[in-house]
Each structure stands twice: as structure tokens, then as C-alpha cells.
């Protein structure tokens, strides 16, 4: 009695350099299963630069182009153009960047590609800080979280950047959120994106055991709780206006403290601060519900 219907093809090999319980590695495994072997992956500086393996090795069974930090979307656009010139419209070009290369450093090239509606699939695996360089804050780091550059005494005072709103504002044909605890939802979204022409953006929450200070076996649990506590709702937006909410269902909703208490990066929080986070989550949730209502 299978719980999921995952394609059996493995395009990510073992022996990669992801840490124990790496959510980003699992995300790549799902993404390639869904995208298939006719895919070219473009990876800017991020954890996956390391995970994929050092020269002259690769842990992926599809071609990978390693590129500079700020250039994932533009390099992917170039690969796409080269393929198009050759008359190849079948190959999927997958830009695969972390939250640093998406929210911060690569944002201008991503915005440019989206504005030109380049025919690429851009997946941001978001582990909510610059993890491979030593857990420095990024624009994706959540409100009041600990990082090495926002230590416990002065945790991050800015809320997480709403990257989905930014991408949706470009009016791209497809933007969606996904996370590793929901493989079927993840696979469906990649396959759906693949079938659409233009710029497709997937925001994937990828728990990071060392960076979140959580045990490696809780990667799926945290990913699932992020959804159940509405920290990371799963939804899709078509053509910048049609919102579709996938998860969480009302009956499974939990208070955000259930999610926060499992992670060392939130262990310094006071009751008041946890309430402030809950309020922020609630505000974003109500906004999302409003968008879903207005577009239906």
C-alpha cells in the first residue's frame, strides 16, 4: 500500500556531499524524478555547488552548468537560447538556486528573465540562510531566527521576504510553493511547470538540520509542520492572478510554536516573540486566503 506515487527513475546518485538529512538533496531528487532525464541543470553558488561534487565528479545523471552566484536565471536563459537555436524545444532548462542566490544576490537576473518570460523552470530551494558558507542570514531567513550573523542577542528583526509575491507580480505563467514532506504535490508541480511555456518559479522549503539546529531525522517532520502551522502554505499562482491553495487543510492546522520549538535557531524566543511570529503568520495567511477568494 504505497503512500506516494514517485517515479522510480533515480537521476540523483548516492555519494553526494549533502549533510545528513539534507532537505535540498531530497528536493533535487524529487525535481529530477519529475523533470526527467532530458534536463539541463544550471547551478549558481549555493549548497548544491558543493553537494553535486568537486571536479571532476558529479552526482547528477543529467548535464549541470555551474555558474556564478548572481547568474542562475540569466545563464539558464542562455542555455535555453542555445537549445532553441538548435531547434531543441524538448529539453527542460532547470535553474536550481538557493535562497541567497534567489532572494538576494540573483534577484535582478531572475527579475530580468521573468520580465522577458524566458522559457525556463527556476527552482529556489530555500533553507533560509547562506548555509554552506556557515549559516549567515539571507533575505529568506525568518523573523527572529538565529544565524551566525544574527546571533541570539540580536536575532533577525526583519520578516522573511515574500519572494512569491515578487515573482507573481511579474505575471509569469506559473509560480508555486512546494516542500519535501509532500512529494506527490512536489512532483505534480514540477510536471505541471514543465508543460507550460515561459518562466516558471517554484519556491521549495528545504529544511537544513545543521542550520536550523535540528536533528537530521526531523527534516520531513519539520517540512510537514511548516505546512501544518501555515508557516509555509502550499499554493499555486497561474499568470500572476489565479491563486490555488493546496495545503494546509483547516482540520490539520497547528500553532506555530509546534514548529518553532523543535528548532535550536528559535530556542531563544520569549513567549511574546512567539506570539509576534504567530501574528505575522496569521497576517500572511489571511492575505493568501484573500487572494484565493478574489481569484476564484
Amino acid at each position: 500500500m504505497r503512500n506516494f506515487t514517485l517515479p522510480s527513475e533515480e537521476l540523483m546518485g548516492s555519494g553526494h556531499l549533502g549533510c545528513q538529512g539534507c532537505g535540498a538533496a531530497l528536493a533535487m531528487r524529487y525535481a529530477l524524478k519529475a523533470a526527467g532525464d532530458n534536463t539541463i541543470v544550471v547551478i549558481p553558488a549555493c549548497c548544491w555547488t558543493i553537494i553535486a561534487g568537486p571536479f571532476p565528479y558529479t552526482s547528477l545523471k543529467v548535464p549541470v552548468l555551474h555558474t556564478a552566484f548572481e547568474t542562475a536565471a540569466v545563464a539558464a536563459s542562455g542555455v535555453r537560447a542555445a537549445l532553441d537555436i538548435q531547434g531543441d524545444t524538448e529539453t527542460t532548462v532547470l535553474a536550481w538556486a538557493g535562497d541567497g542566490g534567489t532572494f538576494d544576490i540573483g534577484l535582478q537576473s531572475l527579475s530580468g528573465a521573468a520580465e522577458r518570460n524566458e522559457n525556463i523552470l527556476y527552482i529556489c530551494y530555500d533553507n533560509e540562510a547562506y548555509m554552506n558558507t556557515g549559516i549567515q542570514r539571507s533575505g529568506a531567513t525568518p523573523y527572529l531566527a538565529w544565524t551566525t550573523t544574527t546571533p541570539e542577542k540580536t536575532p533577525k528583526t526583519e520578516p522573511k521576504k515574500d519572494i512569491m509575491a515578487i515573482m507573481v507580480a511579474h505575471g509569469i505563467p506559473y509560480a508555486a510553493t512546494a516542500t519535501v514532506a509532500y512529494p506527490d504535490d512536489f512532483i505534480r508541480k514540477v510536471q505541471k511547470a514543465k508543460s507550460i511555456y515561459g518562466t516558471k518559479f517554484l519556491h521549495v522549503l528545504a529544511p537544513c538540520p545543521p542550520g536550523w539546529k535540528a536533528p537530521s531525522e526531523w527534516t520531513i517532520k519539520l517540512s510537514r509542520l511548516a505546512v501544518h502551522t501555515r508557516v509555509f502554505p502550499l499554493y499555486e499562482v497561474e499568470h500572476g492572478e489565479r491563486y490555488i491553495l493546496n495545503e494546509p487543510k483547516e482540520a490539520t492546522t497547528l500553532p506555530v510554536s509546534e514548529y518553532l520549538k523543535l528548532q535550536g535557531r528559535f530556542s531563544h524566543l520569549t513567549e511574546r516573540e512567539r506570539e509576534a511570529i504567530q501574528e505575522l503568520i496569521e497576517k500572511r495567511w489571511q492575505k493568501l486566503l484573500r487572494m484565493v477568494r478574489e481569484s476564484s
Partner: protein
Amino acid sequence: MRKPIVFTSEREMPPMAVSLADMGHNCTGSWRYMRPIYSEKIAPCKNACPLGNDIPRILSLVSEGRYEEAWRLFRQTSPLPGVCGRVCYHPCETKCNRKDFDEALSIASIERFVADACFDLEDKVSERPRRSEKIAIVGSGPAGLTCAYFLAKDGYAVTVFEAASQPGGMLRLGIPPYRLPREVLNREIELIARWGVEFRTNTKIGQDIDIEKLWEQYDALFIATGAHRSRALNIPGEELALTGLEFLKAVNAGQTVHIGKRVLIIGGGNTAMDCARTALRLGAQPIVVYRRTREEMPAIAEEIEEAEHEGTQFEFLAAPTAIYQRDGTLEVHCIRMQLGEPDASGRRRPIPIPGSDFVMRADSVLKAVGEEPELSFLSERLETSEGIVLERAQGLLERAGIFVGGDAQTGPSTVAQAMRSGRETAFAIMRFLRGERKPKAPQLDEALRVNFSYFAHKPRVATPQLPVAERISSFAETKRALSADQARVEAQRCFSCGVCNNCDNCWVFCPDAAITRIDSTYQVNYDFCKGCGICAEECPRSVISLVEEEL
């Protein structure tokens, strides 16, 4: 595992940074300090079942509509699924992990459904070996029947001696037909007889046959005569009360018993409940008189509820002190009790309240304050006469080929416990005859950790019941069978605790692609498994354990 690439000079390197091989040389298994292993656990239901019925696998078969296979799996551990599905107090359901999620599985109802659905099926008797040794079993209750079944299946010639006119022991004499229809009992005994078991009814030990003779004539002897002697109240006028068991035996044998309208039943055990519900069906108004409160009643909670639901009244914290006959009715003098400190049984001791005497009137009084084994037939040479002595002498007896089990050994217990004793004795007799030692049974951990994230709430299917008015007007079975659809849907609620059912979670959630599916099993590739523990955490049914790596 592959070899790393070594460039010995610049000329061997590619003109640009391009990959030449995969990461297969990089055995990340060396990072691991916790090792995931597939080790199936014992489900709490199976662990709680006195017979160890393989409940998760049986439910899995039922959920797929494979009823015959489910029935045959029951018969590997129990010859009486139709009986147990009706009368067992189902400790399996009490331990079911699902109770912490929504409601426990309705295991007993499913067992009954399987037995009913396979009523016409037979065991594959032809597959049995033949052996020369002869075994005598005294008593054909659940212990004797079960012992006979397992010995006969293994090829031994088994003769069962029964004092009554039909085999079944307490199942026939004590359990009323509204709980256990006789055609079900008859059918399951018939299937035991098919294995070549000979039943000699109307043969009472100590009267029609002598135990010493049996000992001489047979290679081994199993005494499973049950607990049929009613305990005394030790009060004046006691002889005016019927014993509950005699009453049940008479009614269950089809005799007419006049008990009048108002019937007092002294005692709070299962016999008392059976007496009350039987009396109701004879048109009487039963009142159960019990010296403690409802919480301390030894009867199974479900039986108490049923008796109450059907109209039985209860008089708690009251004990009879004397019975007198006056003007054609009985006058039962009682005293009010209060509860004191816990006694040896852990229940609070009832203490009489001085001066609280009161009188209850009744047309008849049934005493059901417990039963005990009657073992006076044991000869002096066996140096035993009472249950306790017998238990102490058991090792000695077993060396001589005499085994005692069931209620005769333990005092009144449950059907499933008696069956377990019968089955264990069957294997003890086989070992005795073959000169073997008892093998060490492997100890399996119980599957107690369930990841509820992978299950949806679904209500338990209710067992259909006859309406009360119909129930108390006849001895028809009160519980009705589940439909096939209900049984299947209910079985699908099973978590399958500790038993892998190929849900794929471990394979799906491995960030290192280090788990492979081979046919219907999974294998961890320890060359690459980093020991993150996700597979064990996300296994819904605790099949995967994490063990520390040895250095």
C-alpha cells in the same frame, strides 16, 4: 563502489572543468554513526492476544478481501476463530495503537466475520504426518479442544474424554447461546474431529474411567477438566440458593428451570452476568447483588454493560448474611458494605458497616461467587488433590507424562487463556514424547511508535446488535455479523504496526538515494547511507530501528 580519478599530470586533465565520473567512489556510509535496520516488531494486538494470532497480517488479508487466507492464518494459532470472535474479551483491542488516534480496530468482529464467511471451509487434513503415540485428553473445553487440534495436526492419535453428552465443556455448558450459537461451536469441533480426534462423551473421569488406567494405556495425559465447582457463600440458608453454574448448565441443556419473577444473583463475575442475562430471557427480573462497586466487578466490562442495557438491576456494596424461606418466597438478609484498603487482588476490600442490615425478597437466589477446579479424581499416588498442590507438583507430573492445563490449573479464566494453555500443552507433550527441550522463543520488541501523519481519521465500524426487546425474548445471538464491505473497510483502518506493508516512505524520503526497492522488500545501501534517520522517523509503523554503529 568505484575508484577515484587521479590525474598524474596536467595533460591528463580535460581542457575545461568538466565532470568525468559520478560520485560513486565517495562512500558516505563512513559518516554514519546510527544504522537503520529493517526489523519487524510485534504488534501490540498480537502481543496481547493470549493465542498470539497474527492480527496485522490477518487484517491485511481481510482488507484485500482474501478471507480464506485470513481464516487459514487464524487456524495456524487457533482452532476456534468462530468461538473467539464471539466470546473472547479481545485484549487485542484494548492494546490497539489506533485507540490513541481515534478508536481501536474492531478486531473481534472481524474475526467473527472471517469465521462466518469461511463456515463451509475445511482444513487440509491430508497434509498431516502419522505417528504411533496415543494421547488422552480429559475434558473437551477450550483447553482440551485446542490441545487435541494441535496434537492431531501433528499426527498423534488423540482421544478426548468428556463427562457431558457433547464435547465443548464450558463453551457449551456455561456460555449461553445468545453469545455463542451452538452451530458455530459444533462446526469448529467437527473440524477438530476431522483431524482424527476421537471424542468419548458421557465418560466422567473418576467415575467411568480411572486416571491410573489412562496413565497406563496412553503415552501422555492432559487433564483439562476446567473449574466447575461453585464456591460457597458460607451463610445460613445457603442450600436455598441454586448455584449459578448449575442454573446455566440446565438452561443451556434445554431443561425447564423455574426461577420465578424476582431473581437475586450473588456475585459480580462473568457467571453472574450470564445468569442475569439468561434469567432476563426466561422472563425474570434479575438483580445482581455485589459486595463492592461496579469498578471492582471481575466481569468483563462489555458483559456488565450488556446486562445493564438489557434490564439487569444492580445492588452494589451489599453482601448476603442469611437466606430464609418465608411464605413461599425467599428472604435474603444483607449487610451494607464500604470499601477499605486494597487487598491481595489490588481491589479495595469490602468491610461490613455495623447495623446496616436490610432484607431483600426474591423468588429465587443464584449464587455465582466464583468457581474452582474439582480434582478429587486424581489418585493418591499422584500425591495431589487440590489445584495449588497440583501446580507445585507440575514439574514432577510432566516428567511422568501427565499435564494439567486450562481452568483446572489456573482457576476460572478466559476462553483464550484456556486455549493458549491447551496449545502450549500440546507442544509440551510433543517435546515430552520426542525428548526435546523447550526452545527459546525469540523476543521481539513491541511496535509502539506510530507516525500518525500518514493516517486519516476514520470511525470504527459499529458491531450491529439486535434491539433489546428482540434480544430478551429469545436466546438468539445478540450481536450480528459485519457485512463483507464493513469488514473490509474496518480492516483497512489497521495501522499494520511493526509489519512492513510496502508503503514506500523509507524509499521516498531518503535524501541519499541509498534505499532500493527489490520486489516487495527494501534494502539500505550502507556504502552510502549517512544514517540521518529520516527513514526510521517517517516509517509509519516502526518497522525500521536505528542502532548505534559499532566501531
